[in-house]
């Protein structure tokens, strides 16, 4: 099982609070739980909130480094790897519980994202990602992993 989300965080301004939107979501295998678009948006919002809370639960005092939120979540059926970029964009990768090197996979996707989404002059921030080049390379990357 493997599924992938990108959550983008907008910067808060005077007339607009900080928003967290789901800009991309894709499943790479068959037979996953199908949710409605609305459910995905709700989940994205929930995760954003939980992520912010977990940064504050740090039991170490004083913290040695700026706290980070959830990085890995393990359940009986899947494993979630979360990668947050310096600007607050979150990459969520859902895999099987024993998938190895998920952090490397996400780092590789981040590279693709930087190259094919961020450097795309026609892409505007906080909008859903609809780019054929990005889609094609992401699917190719995942196909290699899933066929191993």
């Amino acid at each position, binding site marked *: 099982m493997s599924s992938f989300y990108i959550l983008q965080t907008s910067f808060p301004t005077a007339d607009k609070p900080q928003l967290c939107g789901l800009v991309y979501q894709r499943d790479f295998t068959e037979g996953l*739980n199908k949710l409605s678009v609305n459910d995905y948006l709700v989940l994205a919002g929930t995760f954003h909130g939980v992520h912010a809370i977990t940064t504050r*639960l740090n*039991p170490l005092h004083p913290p040695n480094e700026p706290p980070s939120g959830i*990085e890995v*979540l393990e359940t*009986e059926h899947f494993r979630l790897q979360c990668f947050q970029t310096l600007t607050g964009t979150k990459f969520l990768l859902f895999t099987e519980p024993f998938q190895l090197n998920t952090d490397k996979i996400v780092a590789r996707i981040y590279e693709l994202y930087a190259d094919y989404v961020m450097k795309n002059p026609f892409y505007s921030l906080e909008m859903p990602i609809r780019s054929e080049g990005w889609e094609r390379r992401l699917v190719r990357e995942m196909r290699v992993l899933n066929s191993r």
Partner: protein
Amino acid sequence: MVVYSFYIFDRHTECVYSKLWARQDRPISGGGTSIRPISDSSATSNGAPPDLGPARARPARLSAQDDAKLIFGTIFSLRNMVRKLGGPDDSFISFRTGQYKLHYFETPTSTKFVMLTDTGTLNMRNVLHQIYVNLWVEYVVKNPICPVEHPGGEGVANEKFEMGLETFVKGFV
């Protein structure tokens, strides 16, 4: 490995037991390491507005009560999220941040056991299950003078349970 803290939440979302091991500079009255009960809802707000800065900023310290509430909120949201994504019989086991790892175990009666450890710790679900079977059931559930529900943590922190937990955690640390 280091165990930072341990919490039990009952099915009414109330924290009935909490214990902190790591030395923490927190405004806990009495200065002891064990606080109970911590469900005193009227005395919790310390008047300070919540700091809603950017996620990467260094946050202010929270009181132990607020910590317990935040932990409950986190595990509740995550549990619902995991059920939606992984199917109704899925439940999350643990999550890890850069600083700590939270382990979670839920009994069929919705009592929730939560333990915070350092990041290098392996799966602690069986440890939490052991605490449930050997300590909670033996010393709290089977205690005839202990109430069925534990409003305000009543009846949970008896001597046997405290001692058992202390030796158990010391045993595997």
